[in-house]
Each structure stands twice: as structure tokens, then as C-alpha cells.
């Protein structure tokens, strides 16, 4: 693209897709911002008009708000930690030559293909259920009281279920990264006297940083919006113990039917996502440089 005219041609031909993408993004955002400053309640349609910042003020002052923010961050952080630690370990394991490697890998990947509400239902009803669940009968089998997972440890349970869903994704990305590590480097380290742990710490882990960064960035995008698993299992409860920002917005929009407040919550969620993205890119962006 050396000359003026070819650069212009490039811009012209790119323009339609850029414009479509821009509209695709800006229209919902603009509408949400618009609604967030309006009085817009489905239960009292006659009351309309400008709300100023009242929707925002209500949202931020509502008793669940800070809990929801911290739950959201806890969910994102917890799932990231679990999926990366176990993703690395499982990737290391299934990278070994074992009998039945192909089917084994498919099995490891398969949770990713289960839809979120289905995954949550499976865990809720087949495993964590205090009467019918497998974990309950295991506990009874050894003479213990069944643990009421969703009642007593709602956030941990949700984090666990979401981790189960996302672990395959992390494992897959980390496995491919692991396979691109040259075996000569490992052998060189072996000759240099590095034991298995040192090889992991000084050779394998640095090699995986870029893949880990990719996993963190992609998962964060999806985890900030986790909703289905909470809706299916705890409904944000008991009380508000497992309410996250997306769930709070859902309650305003669908249960309280207050579109203005829900939109304000949506904008707050966008701001939160940008703050998170800013810190992520600042701390890890350089890992993506070639």
C-alpha cells in the first residue's frame, strides 16, 4: 500500500464493513445510554420523562450493588484461577503419550459443548442436590451429613460449575501452546541439569505466558457476563448471596420491569468491563507482543 491512491482504495473497500461494525456497536450502546436517563417502567407506562442521574444513583445505592460488583469480580477471578491452574496441569498430563489419547482428549474437551443452563442443571440436580445428588449419597455413604452446596456455599458452587465449563477451553489453548514447545529446548534443559520442576518453571511456564494471557483475556470477556448458570441454580440467592451485576440488571429489567434502572446498570457494567480491560491490557498486553 505504497501510493496515495492505493491507500484510498483500501480505505474505501474496507469502509462498508467498518461502518456496519460501528453501527452494530453504537446503536445498542446509544439506546442503552438513552434509556438509562429516562423514566421507563413497564408497570407504569404513563409515567415518562427524563430521570437525570436518578437511575444511576438508585442502582449504586441499592443494598446489593457492591456485593454484586464483588461477586462479579470474585466469579471472574475464581474461574480464571481454577481454569488456568488446572488447565496447565491437565494439558501437561494429556500431552504425555498415553493409550487412547484421541478419545481422552475429546472427553476432556467435551464439557465445553454442553450449554450453560444444561451444565448448571446437571450439577445442581445430579451432583449437588441434597437428596438425589451423587455428592450427597457419597457423604451419606461415609456417614456424613450431605453438604447444602447451593444454600451454604452459593458463590463457590457457581464458580465451580462455571470453571467446569471453561476448563476445556483453557486446556485446549494451553495444550496447543505446549505442543509448540520444541523438544530440543526441554532436552537442552535436561542436559543443563534442570529437574522436572525447574524445567516447568524456567522453560515451560515462560513458553506458556502468551497462551495464558490469551486465555485470561478471552475468558474475562465471557465471564463478566455469566448469567445462565446463576439463573438456573441459585437465582442469585440465598438472599442476594450470589447476585452478580448481570443478574442484578436482569432483576431490574425482567422482575421489577424498570427498563431505565436496568439500562443504568448496563452502562455501569460496560464501565466495569472497561476498567477490567484497562488493567488487564496494562499488566499483560506486553505478553502479546511478538
Amino acid at each position, binding site marked *: 500500500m505504497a501510493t496515495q491512491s492505493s491507500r484510498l482504495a483500501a480505505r474505501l473497500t474496507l469502509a462498508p464493513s467498518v461502518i456496519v461494525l460501528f453501527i452494530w456497536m453504537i446503536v445498542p450502546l446509544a439506546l442503552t445510554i438513552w434509556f438509562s436517563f429516562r423514566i421507563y417502567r413497564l408497570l407504569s407506562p404513563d409515567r415518562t420523562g427524563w430521570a437525570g442521574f436518578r437511575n444511576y444513583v438508585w442502582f449504586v445505592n441499592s443494598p446489593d450493588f457492591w456485593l454484586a460488583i464483588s461477586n462479579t469480580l470474585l466469579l471472574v477471578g475464581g474461574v480464571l484461577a481454577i481454569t488456568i491452574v488446572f488447565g496447565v496441569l491437565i494439558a501437561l498430563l494429556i500431552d504425555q503419550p498415553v493409550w487412547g489419547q484421541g478419545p481422552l482428549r475429546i472427553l476432556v474437551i467435551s464439557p465445553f459443548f454442553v450449554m450453560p443452563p444444561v451444565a448448571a442443571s446437571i450439577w445442581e440436580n445430579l451432583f449437588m442436590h441434597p437428596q438425589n445428588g451423587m455428592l450427597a449419597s457419597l457423604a451419606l455413604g461415609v456417614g456424613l451429613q450431605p453438604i447444602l452446596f447451593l444454600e451454604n456455599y452459593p458463590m463457590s458452587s457457581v464458580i465451580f460449575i462455571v470453571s467446569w465449563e471453561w476448563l476445556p477451553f483453557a486446556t485446549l489453548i494451553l495444550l496447543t501452546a505446549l505442543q509448540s514447545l520444541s523438544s530440543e*529446548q526441554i*532436552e*537442552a534443559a535436561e*542436559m*543443563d541439569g534442570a529437574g522436572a520442576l525447574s524445567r516447568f518453571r*524456567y522453560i515451560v511456564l515462560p*513458553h506458556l*505466558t502468551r497462551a495464558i494471557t490469551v486465555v485470561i483475556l478471552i475468558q474475562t470477556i465471557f465471564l463478566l457476563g455469566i448469567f445462565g448458570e446463576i439463573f438456573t441454580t441459585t437465582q442469585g440467592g440465598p438472599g442476594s448471596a450470589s447476585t452478580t451485576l448481570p443478574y442484578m440488571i436482569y432483576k431490574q429489567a425482567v422482575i421489577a420491569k424498570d427498563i431505565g434502572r436496568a439500562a443504568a446498570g448496563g452502562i455501569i457494567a460496560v464501565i466495569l468491563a472497561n476498567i477490567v480491560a484497562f488493567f488487564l491490557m496494562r499488566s499483560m498486553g506486553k505478553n502479546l507482543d511478538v
Partner: protein
Amino acid sequence: MGKITLKSVRKAFGEVDVIPGIDLGIEDGEFVVFVGPSGCGKSTLLRLIAGLEDVTSGTITIDGKDMTELPPAQRGLAMVFQSYALYPHMSVRKNIAFPLKMAGVSPEEQERKVQAAAKVLNLGDYLDRRPGQLSGGQRQRVAIGRAIVREPKAFLFDEPLSNLDAALRVSMRQEISELHQNLKTTMIYVTHDQVEAMTMADKIVVLNAGRIEQVGSPMELYRSPANLFVAGFIGSPKMNLIEGAEAARHGAATIGIRPEHIDIGRGDWHGVVGLSEHLGSDTFLKVMADGLGTLTVRADGEVSIKAGDRIRMSPQPDKIHRFDKDGKALA
């Protein structure tokens, strides 16, 4: 110290016997070169010595101690890989210091040894760069630096120069030879470049299909190849091999004569010159010799023979190699 002895070392990958059984002694301080065609098992043999591959049977002793079952790190050998195998996320300094760090050497001592190695290898200006920011020759030096700081009993090189261009190869070849003269450590060097083998080795081991064809000093192999394979492999351009009536006249199934041992001008061999390659110092002529096939003949650099000329030649009688019908050299 670095005396390495292999006793009936065998290596099979599954069904395939890559190395059917090798006996070899390498003396302390020797520069040994493994040569052979691609796929003959040179790298495998080197990796067996290094401990990166397990032997199927046989024993490997280093300085009298049986090392067959020991992991690579405990054998006290250092290896330089063909791909250099530098650690890409570490600076040159950290790369060279890595074996020391693993050995628990103090940071001051590490730095001292890194500086010493950098001085020997002219790497002083690059210590803070990453391997990705170095040229091929510089990377090769870093890989050697990483090997020498450990003060190993022996160095193992697997085709270390094959990724370099011709000029750099010549200079690195000399650097490695000088390094050997200064350190006087045993070195085992794998290559399929026979010029490298001839110029660097104290002892050449010619391998073919996992078997040792001949072991000897470069000049021994050049003067008296034990068989047709070695005769054809050592020497450049290759030895001319002649069968049929002319061979029978010398009482052999095959005779061999090197291009540099054929005199032009007189003699009872006649032929028409095909291609002539002028290298400056020498000229190599391809001659269609009557009843003998195509011969390569070395002539003087300034020779004025052209393609199409008819010439007479004679082999130097004491330089004729005779082989029996199994390819073994006849005395």
C-alpha cells in the same frame, strides 16, 4: 577427564534396529567426528551417549563408571544442538548462566564464568540481548557458551554448523577447533559434511546404517579405506570406482583411484573431456574414458584443456585401491 566407552550398544525404535550393536572407545581429549549419510544413526548414537535416548542393550561407561542408566544431567556432558535450543525468553547472559544456576552456583561466580565464556566467544556486547535478536553465528556461540561454562567431561555437537552459510561455517569450524585445542576436552562431533570431518577430527568414525564401517584418523581413512563405502564417502570429489576388465587386470572386483591421483598427458587410459570445473586452484575434469566409464580427474588450475578434447591419462600405480567383490579392501 572424558574417556567414553561403548560396549555392544544397541538401539531399536519399536521393530526397527537403528543401531544393531556398536563398540567404540573414545580417549580423553580426543576430537571424534561421526560421519555418515543421512539417517544412518549419527544423532541417535550421540543422543544415546548424552542419555537423551535409552539404550536397548549394551553399556556406556564414562571415565570407567557405568553411566548407562543415569539421566543426562548426571553424566557430566554438554550438548550443542543443531537448532541451538536456546531459551528464547532469557537474555544471552541468563542462557549461558542457566546450567550454573541449576547447579546452585552463587550469582557472583555465575557472572564471573559468564564473562569468561563471553570473552572466549566474543559475546561481550550481546549479553543483554535475547536469542531472537542474534544472528545464526552468534546464536551458535551462545549455545557453545552455555556448554563450556559447565566444564563438562565431554562436548557433544550435533551438526552445529549446518544452519550457517558457507563462509561462517569455515570460521566457526576453526573456532571450534581452537576451542578444542585450548580446552583439551573430549569432543564428539556429528556431521555429514566430510570437509568438516577431515579438517577437525583426531579420529573419524564412519557410520552406515547404524554400523561402524571404519574408525581412524582422517589421513588413515583417506589413504587406506577399509571398504568401498568409506572409499566413496571420504574424499572430495569422490574416488573413481572402476569395475570390469580394468579391475580384473589388477586382480580385484573393483578398483578405486582418487581424482588427484590420475596424471594427465601420458598413459594408456584414453578419454574425451566433458565438463570442466575451474575452481581457481584446481580444475576438475569429467572424462568419458574408453571402457572405464566417467572419471573425475584433477588437473592444474591453469590447465588449458577444454570440453571435447581427447586426453590420455595414467593412474599413479601405488595409489590404486583394490576391493574384492564384497567391497572389502584387498591388501
